[in-house]
């Protein structure tokens, strides 16, 4: 009887909190995040399922999950020295356990964590969208950084599974999905600009993803978001998989709002049908 009532997608650059603190509410990042926050507030979900890629802060190569569900009553962060406030946020352990169990029953090989903190990729979005930290989260981690990455269709199917499992939840509950990540971003790799440590090497891909999202062309996105294509968009380009999993929870809908920052390699989107 629970249901997905909305979905959101945002970037999570660790510089954003300090940037907005410095430049104020009129800067572009502040404006775009405020737009998405307005939609989150309007929908007022009971729980946020967050699709996210950790950056080797929570999980490392000694035990690196492809997919992992965080089943906990509380987590905190950022754990990676991002210059921003430190927050504690509730998890929804019963729903998280239900999603993991449903996934395993349907052939998803989901890792489990009952004890973890999170990095900027969850805390930056929450800082802007739910700074009161009153909405419990169910974090679902997708390996978007360390190839081989899971395929786009597999991530979409993960989202579909989450949608179905939420429908099976016995209580009334309004759930929103949140995707955290970039479409084109290279950090520390050969595609960075001269004199920089990071860049967005593939504005064409950002534009294409934005276009496909805007028009609800999910199948085209799944077709085009191959491992090779995402890798060409930057070594962090696999964070698109979080958006793709989020789309799996809502299907071929068009967003009510979506706006890119093309030269930053990402978009801000809100899907609502209320």
């Amino acid at each position, binding site marked *: 009887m629970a249901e997905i009532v909305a979905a959101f997608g945002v970037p999570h650059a660790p510089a954003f909190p300090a940037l907005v603190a410095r430049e104020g509410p009129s800067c572009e990042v502040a404006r775009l995040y405020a737009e998405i926050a307005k939609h989150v507030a309007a929908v007022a979900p009971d729980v946020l399922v967050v699709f996210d890629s950790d950056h080797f802060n929570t999980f*490392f*190569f000694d035990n690196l999950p492809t997919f992992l569900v965080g089943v906990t009553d509380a987590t905190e962060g950022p754990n990676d020295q991002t210059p921003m406030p430190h927050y504690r946020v509730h998890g929804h352990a019963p729903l998280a356990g239900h999603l993991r169990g449903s996934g395993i029953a349907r052939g998803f090989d989901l890792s489990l964590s009952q004890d973890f903190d999170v990095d900027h990729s969850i805390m930056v979005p929450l800082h802007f969208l739910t700074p009161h930290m009153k909405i419990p989260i169910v974090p679902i981690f997708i390996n978007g950084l360390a190839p081989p990455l899971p395929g786009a269709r597999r991530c979409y199917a993960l989202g579909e599974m989450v949608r179905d499992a939420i429908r099976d939840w016995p209580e009334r509950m309004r759930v929103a999905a949140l995707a955290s990540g970039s479409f084109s971003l290279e*950090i*520390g*790799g*050969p595609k*960075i600009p*001269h*004199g920089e440590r990071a860049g967005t090497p593939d504005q064409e891909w950002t534009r294409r993803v934005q276009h496909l999202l805007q028009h609800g062309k999910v199948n085209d996105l799944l077709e085009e978001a191959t491992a090779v294509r995402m890798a060409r968009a930057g070594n962090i380009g696999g964070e698109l998989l979080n958006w793709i999993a989020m789309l799996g929870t809502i299907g071929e809908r068009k967003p009510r709002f979506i706006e890119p920052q093309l030269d930053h390699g990402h978009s801000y989107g809100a899907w609502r049908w209320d």
Partner: protein
Amino acid sequence: MSVYAVNKLCRDALHDRTFREALRTDPAAAISPLDLSEDERKALLTGDVAWLFEHGCHPFLLAYLTRWDLFGLTVPVYSERIRKARDPRDEQAAV
């Protein structure tokens, strides 16, 4: 897996302040206990991030080294060197 050891060194530089200070003050001594090949040790000490990248180290983690200019890796130096690395993605794209 000594690629693992290099990746871990980069991660530990972020998360372990004491280790980071050791890397800054005496890099050769700081990495001497680590399970590294001689080539890796040399590449680290000379800041040869292109070589480390080409041998499998993760660039997101290597880029941490520029935060504290470890192994002489200022951002301009890092950028210049990594941009010359052989990039497997270009080879994939050419196939």
